[in-house]
């Protein structure tokens, strides 16, 4: 797989894993559409990437906002051309500190699903049929171990990630026998702002650097055909999970 002829849309691209993925893919030659909510951080990220001669289109938007979806794909494809790879990386924990379901406001629960689940569905819906008729496309959802294990206080987030994994399987089932592939990737626990928000007392030395995880994710994306479409892939065990072809 070569990146120099690919256009990649990354949500949540202004920091953490999203920004690390942008650096990894950008230095391999991919054109990048970077979506994030915070204007200042997004601008800073774009400048960082451009300083490395990476072609990037920053798009300020909230992926949980239905009205933003066609603005995002329109702006990205006007400037960069058709999207080949879609990385659903943006997500929200909901209000910090995390709260038990009993103490979670219904509106906050809904908001987490809008950003982490419905937004990715809408973006994929706007792009997947284009990938289908162009004969190539890859959609990856960044998941979490909270999709599998039920940790107290991680309710809304965990539910959204479990559903996101199933969204991968559902897309894969419907796009079976087409050139469009879908994966869920569990990055593992990373040393990011988001992790600090969730678990402020965690020892950072026990957490993975997002740059390292981004490298592994790129490894998986480059070998996407070796994983069954719809599969949930652990970044840390990417090699073992690949089907030898």
């Amino acid at each position: 797989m070569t990146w120099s002829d690919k256009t990649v849309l990354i949500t949540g691209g202004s920091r953490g894993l999203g920004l690390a993925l942008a650096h990894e893919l950008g230095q391999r030659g991919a054109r990048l559409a970077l979506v994030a909510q915070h204007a200042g951080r997004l601008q800073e990220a774009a400048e960082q990437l451009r300083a490395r001669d990476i072609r990037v289109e920053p798009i300020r938007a909230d992926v949980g906002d239905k009205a933003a979806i066609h603005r995002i794909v329109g702006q990205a494809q006007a400037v960069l051309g058709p999207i080949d790879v879609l990385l659903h990386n943006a997500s929200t924990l909901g209000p910090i500190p995390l709260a038990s379901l009993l103490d979670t406001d219904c509106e906050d629960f809904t908001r987490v699903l809008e950003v982490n689940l419905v937004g990715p569905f809408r973006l994929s819906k706007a792009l997947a049929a284009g990938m289908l008729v162009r004969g190539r496309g890859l959609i990856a959802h960044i998941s979490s171990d909270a999709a599998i294990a039920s940790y107290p206080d991680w309710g809304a987030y965990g539910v959204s990630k479990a559903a996101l994994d199933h969204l991968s399987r559902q897309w894969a089932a419907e796009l079976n026998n087409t050139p469009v592939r879908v994966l869920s990737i569990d990055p593992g626990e990373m040393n990011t702002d988001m992790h600090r928000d969730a678990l402020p007392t965690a020892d950072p030395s026990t957490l993975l650097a997002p740059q390292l995880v981004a490298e592994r994710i790129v490894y998986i994306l480059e070998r996407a055909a070796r994983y069954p479409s719809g599969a949930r892939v652990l970044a840390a065990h990417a090699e073992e999970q690949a089907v030898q072809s």
Partner: protein
Amino acid sequence: MSAAASASHEAATRLLLVDTRSDEIAEGETTALPGLLDPRDILVVNDAATLPASLSGFTARGEPVEIRLLEGPYQATTRALLFGRGDYHTRTELRDPPPVLAPGDSITVGTTALQICTVSSLSPRLVELHWPLELSARFVLLYRAGRPVQYSYVAEPLALWDVQTRFAARPWAVEMPSAARPLTGSLLLALAARGVEVATLTHAAGLSASGDPAVDAALPLPERYDIPLATVRRIEATRGRGGRVVAVGTSVVRALEDSAQRHGAVRAGVASAELILDQDTSPRVVSGLLTGIHVPGESHYKLLAAFTRAATLARAAALAEHRGYRTHEFGDAALFLPDLPARGARGLTHRAA
């Protein structure tokens, strides 16, 4: 999706079938398309996304103006049509003319002043506008301030998602390439399962009405298109194996035939379509097309005459009218193609004499 658009989306399944070789006319449903095509055939679609090409602004004197872009702001200067007070609820031909504007005057959209570079001698509606912004910022403004160009037959305001085809990619069109609207996700998958190839090109579909007879007579204006090399190769392969090249929409016909006429065969790359097809045109590449319901007098109807004998076309139009087919962009569909299967195609309900 708005209620109005939703209702018209659901009902848009009727398909008028015109066999351009046998001159037989039948009725069916768009869901029957895969069975009407052969695995040797190729369907060529326009993958242009639809821009929010209508902008509301004000002159320096505070007069309201509606700008309808004729093309996306890929260049700093773009062609546009101007309308005065009012909105899409008024029929286009009844819209007020724009305020008197001259080169150098500006129209302010949000906080950005778009400057008028030229006013056409054809009509004071037709102008060139300069955007004092970089490429990216032009699209940021357009997506923030613009809304889809809309006509009075749908009362509810259309959202941007109401005017996209399933496979919309680069936003080049200022009106939805609506012939592709019946191609739902399940239909695309069914076509793939049947082995019918789908290939893409991008065509900057322009406005279908200007409200000014002088401009309308000049429509369609030259429109940019881009044909990928992969599509050229697949079309060649289709013709090589005796399959039919089925254009989805008049914009695809225009792009392919314009390219074939320029070069003797379809060639990859970007060009501007100037060819206007009519009964005197012999299509070089396109075998037939899936399109909307068009009525005599329209440029789209004239294009159909390049594929269909005049008497058959008139008969099809009369049947469509008699049976209540809807003609607008959210309306029903028609397939003009030689050698349609005589029977057995699911959804065939009526065979006209």
